[in-house]
Each structure stands twice: as C-alpha cells, then as structure tokens.
C-alpha cells in the first residue's frame, strides 16, 4: 500500500504540472478566440475558427482535467456512443430543412 501511495504521489506531481500547463493554454486560447472575433471575418471562416478553438479548449479540459486521456475503456465506449447521438441531434433537424434555409 505504501509503494502504491508513493507512486500515486509522484504521479500526482506530474499531473499537477500538466494542469498548470493546460490552464495557461486555456487562458491563451480564450484570448485568441476573442481576438479572432474582432477580425470581423466572414461567417464561414468565423464559425470554423471559433469552433476549432473551442474544440481544442474543450479537449484539453476533457483529456486532462477530466482525466479522459487515461480513462478506462468502458467510459470511452459510453462517450463515443453519446457523441454519435449528439451529432445526430445536432445536425438531424437542420439537414432535414436544407431546402428552406439561407446559409
């Protein structure tokens, strides 16, 4: 039990370094995404960039703060399935109305 405890301790120290790095990255990306919005890009590129940066930020939170990067297979499976259905509900409605929307 003691060896496990020490291993965990060392592990946590490594994790803490990662948390700080991720924190800095998140702050920076926030400022970047706000900065980009002031560039007044056209709709398409603006949406793409905003969502790209948000996805990177979100992935950092999920992978490192939520420990997904080292999480067990079962959790992954549940989440992958959820993501598929998330995409279905997100895009399904709008795909059924492509004829009468203005992009």
């Amino acid at each position: 039990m003691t060896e496990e405890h020490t291993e965990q301790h060392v592990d946590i120290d490594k994790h803490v370094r990662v948390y700080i790095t991720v924190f800095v990255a998140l702050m920076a990306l926030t400022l970047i995404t706000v900065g980009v919005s002031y560039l007044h890009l056209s709709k398409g590129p603006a949406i793409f960039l905003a969502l790209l940066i948000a996805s990177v930020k979100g992935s950092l939170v999920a992978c490192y703060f939520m420990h997904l990067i080292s999480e067990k297979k079962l959790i992954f499976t549940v989440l992958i399935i959820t993501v598929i259905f998330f995409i279905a509900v997100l895009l399904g409605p709008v795909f059924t109305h492509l004829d009468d929307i203005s992009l």
Partner: protein
Amino acid sequence: MVQVETHDQSPERSGQPAAPHGGEGHGGHGEDLSFWRKYVFSVDHKVIGIQYTITGFLFLFFGFCLMLLMRWELAHPGQPLPVIGGLLGASRMPGGVMLPEFYNQLGAMHGTIMVFLGVVPLAFGGFGNYVVPLQIGAPDMAFPRLNMMSYWVYFVGGLIMLASFFAPGGSAQSGWTSYPPLAIINPTGQTVWLIGMVFLITSSLLGSVNFITTIVQLRAPGLTWMRLPFFVWSQLVTAFLLLLAFPPLEAASVMQLMDRVGGTSFFLPSGLVVGGAVLSKVSGGGSPILWQHLFWFLAHPEVYVLILPALGIVAEIVANNTRKPLWGYKSMVYSVLAIGFLSFIVWAHHMFLTGMGTVMNTFFQTTTMIISIPSVIILTCLVLSLWGGAIRFTVPMLFALAFLPMFGIGGLTGLPLGLSAADIQLHDTYYVIGHFHYVVAPGTIFALFAGIYYWFPKATGRKMSTWLGHLHFWPSFVCMNLIFFPMFIQGLHGMQRRLWDGGASYEHAQSTLYLHELIMVAAWTMAVFQLPFVFNFFWSMWKGKKVGDNPWHATTIEWQAPSPPPHGNFAHALAVHRGPYEYSVPGAAEDFTPQTAPAGATGPGGPAGPGAEPVPAE
C-alpha cells in the same frame, strides 16, 4: 449526482458481494427501521420495484378508463353517456354529452398516462428494479437512495399529471405529442403537463444511471456478459435509451414552457393567425418543426423502451416453459444492441409528411427498414425456441405465447408506415393506432401480465390462481384483437386519428363507422375481464398456494434466493458457473441446471449449451 453522506459507513470492502447480516448496514438495522423507512421511503430495490409496479398498474387502469370514455363517444357521438356522463360536470360532459375539448383531453392524457405513467414505470421501474439485482446476484442496486428518489419523483410527476385535469380549461389536449403552435395556445393544462414531464424525465434519468451502473458493476463473480439472462440485456439497452434520448425532450419541454409562460417564440412562427387575428404579443421567428424533431428524438427510442423489457420477459418465460435454452441467444443479444443504437437514427419517420425532402425521407426510411431486421431476428429466435420444446402451458406461458404473433402483427404493420410513399396514405390514420397498439397492448402489456404471473411467487412465496389466470387470459386475448384489428380497416379507408366524433362528419370514415360499436363493446368487455386479474393479484397475496423458492424450476439466479428475498437478497455470496438457460442438459439429474451449479456437476457427458466453461479469472 453525488450522493450525500450518511452515518454508519463500515470500512471499505474488498469488493466481494458481502453476505448480509439481517439487514445490517442499510441505514441502521433492518428490523429497527420505522414503518415509513421500511415500506414507504425504503431504499430496498424490491420495495421500490413493488411501489413502481402497483403505481404503474393504477395509472394503467386509469388510462384504460379514459379510453373507455373515448370509445363511448366514438360509437355514439353527441349522445349522453348514462350514469358516468352526469358525474363529470358541465365543463366536460354537459348533460352527459362529451365536449370535443374533453375528448381531446382524454386522447392526450390516455397516451401520456399509458406511456409515461403506466407501461414504462411498470416495465422498467417495476420489473427492472425488482428482478435485475436478483438476476445478477447483487444485494441491491448500485445507488439505493437514488433509486428511492427516482420512484418518488415519478410519483410526484404522476400526481401533477393527474392534477392537470383540474386546471382551468382542462388538461393537455394537443395529443401526447403536444405539437406547437396548438400546444402553446391551448389552456393551462398543457403547462401542467410540461411540468409533469420534467419530473418524469428526471425520474427516468436517475433510474437509468442506476440500472447501467448496477448491471455493469454488481454482477456476481462468474456472471460474464454472455451469461446474462436476456432480460438483463434488454433492461440494459432500455436504460441507455432512457439516458440518452430523454434529455432532448427535457430541453424541448423547457422551451415550450418558456413559449407558454415566458412569451418566447421558440416554436411560434412569425405571423401566426389564431382565431382570425395575428398573434401580436410574440416575437415570432420560431420553428414548430423544431419541437417535432426534439420530441420524436425521444419518442422514437421511447417505443423501444416500451417493447424491450417485454421482449426480455417473454424470453425468460419461453426458455423456462419449453425446458430448453433460447435459440440464438447470441443473435438476440447483438440484435438488441443493434436496435438500441439504430433507434436513435430513425425518428423522422414520424415526420415524413413535414416536407423534409426526398433525401432525408429516404435516409430515415432506410434506417427504419434496417431496424426491422434485428427486431425480426429476436422474434424469430423466440419462435424457433419453441421448436422441440416440452412446452408447459402455464399462465405466464399463455401470455408469452400470445405475445409472439401479436408483436408480429404489430411489427409487420409498421413496415408500410416506415416506407415514406405508403405513409402518405397511412399517416395520422387509424392504421397507425392499430399498429402501435398491437405492439404495446397485446404485445407489451401481455408480456407484463406474463411477468406478473411468473415472478409473483418470487415476490410473495405464493402462486396466483391458475383458473383465474385463464379467465383473465382468454377473453383478453380475444378482445384485444377485436379492438385493434378493425382499426387497420378503418385506417386503410382513410379514417383520420383524433376525430372526436369518430369520423361521423368525415366522408372517408362513413363506410367503417359501424366498427366503432364493435370496438367499444370489445373494450368494455376487456375491462370486465381485467377484474379477475386484479382480484387474483391481491387475493393470492394472502390465499394463494404457498410454493418454494423455485416453483417454476428455473435456471436464473433470482430463483436461488428465498421467496420473498430478504433485505440483501442472498444468504451466501454467489458464484456463477453457467449460462442462463441450461435446461434439459444431457446427463443432468433434473431438466434444469441453475446458473450457480458448479461446472461439470451434471454427470458423465458433461454439460452442454452455451457458457458452461469454468469460472473465468475475474
């Protein structure tokens, strides 16, 4: 949500299922619990399961009564209903004559109550809660307090739904589907409906988290995935459907509440004209179709929530009463997983007539046709399981056998509805009503009856009367068909749904109006023949023939527990060595070998059938 800490935590365990010591560790000591903690606010899955079952049945009968009133109106539009008509008051049935608004209320609430307050709480909350922990050899659900909460939230949601009848203007009256804009401009009852739905959805979510965690984590040692009874698989998939499909409806309900109460226009289009005047105080810009998408995103998986537990119950009873393993167990497992997944991408087959365009119509038509394949596989496996069996026509088996062709009719009649071209003719007609009722009524509800007769001895230590069971079954079976088959005929002739006068003033309906009388008589007759069941259920609790722990000579683990099981379920820690359906194993002393029987103990020749390997290292 994170559980709030309580007192009396014993030190962390090694992870083996502990032998219970007369109720120790469950909020104090079993015998010391007050009446309220033991029977009302219990955290024991069996008590909660019984609570769900009884409440579910009460709602089922109430929803049935609503339908009986509707059937009178359809057969005798505009005529006063003797006796009962006078009791319902001038706002509903002045002079005993049903108002169209009241008919619409009955319609909306019949659907809502049957689906959300009756069948699902019974099938999932009732049967699932009671049987699943026992069938996996667990002492209880993973989160007992969450379990208790999920029941009481359901109960409150149900009360709210009932209360909606007393709102000014009556209850919800825009169908169980609550389509805007109508649902938004209808009276207060709709707001109450939405609030009730939020409670019911919350209850569902709490329950589904519990079920999945329990099935994943609390299986007894040796109970590998492919040794799980099919019933547990079906409950697992059902739990996933509830977990992931309900939230969009919750979001939509919140938005509809905001439209009704907060003046928003999520679902109200610009320039909507109501009663000759443009709706002026709203911003417009909303989309009624948005509601349909979010509603059906839930409501399609919901219908699989209605059928999957039933398929699970039937599978258990068929295996038990044919004295042989289920045919194609593995195919059934993969099929139920496929159904679960596909059910999320077929929803817009309820929206074929909304102008989605041929590409999307084709997409949803295709996924709908594909999902029929695993359904047919499961039904076929169940039917093939009968071949060569030593069939025992017990009362549960009667209901289970009847389920098979009834579900077949229900499923097959769904096929034209899933084809967008044919659906043009059939959408919103009585054909649809016939289709889904065949699946839910002589389908699911028969399976639920079967389950009651089957597991009653486990819960009470007594058997229900066989004679009363027959008196319940045969007339019900006949009546079910007399009620729902004519609806296909009416629908094919073009009779629309939700017509308060039964189509009396609608040209397409004229040639089939005569069928309303037949349906009404069959419905009222069926009501009468549910009384033997109700009587049997309660009478047998005290006077039923006493039986041992395993009266059906079944193989699954729940039959290893005492009848009824005590707090904590099993007296000794269990280990599983076999698959779930080792009936008629060659060389065995009896025609059934329990899952917990040690491997190789059945004598020369060895055990046959799936899953008979020694306990894997876990």
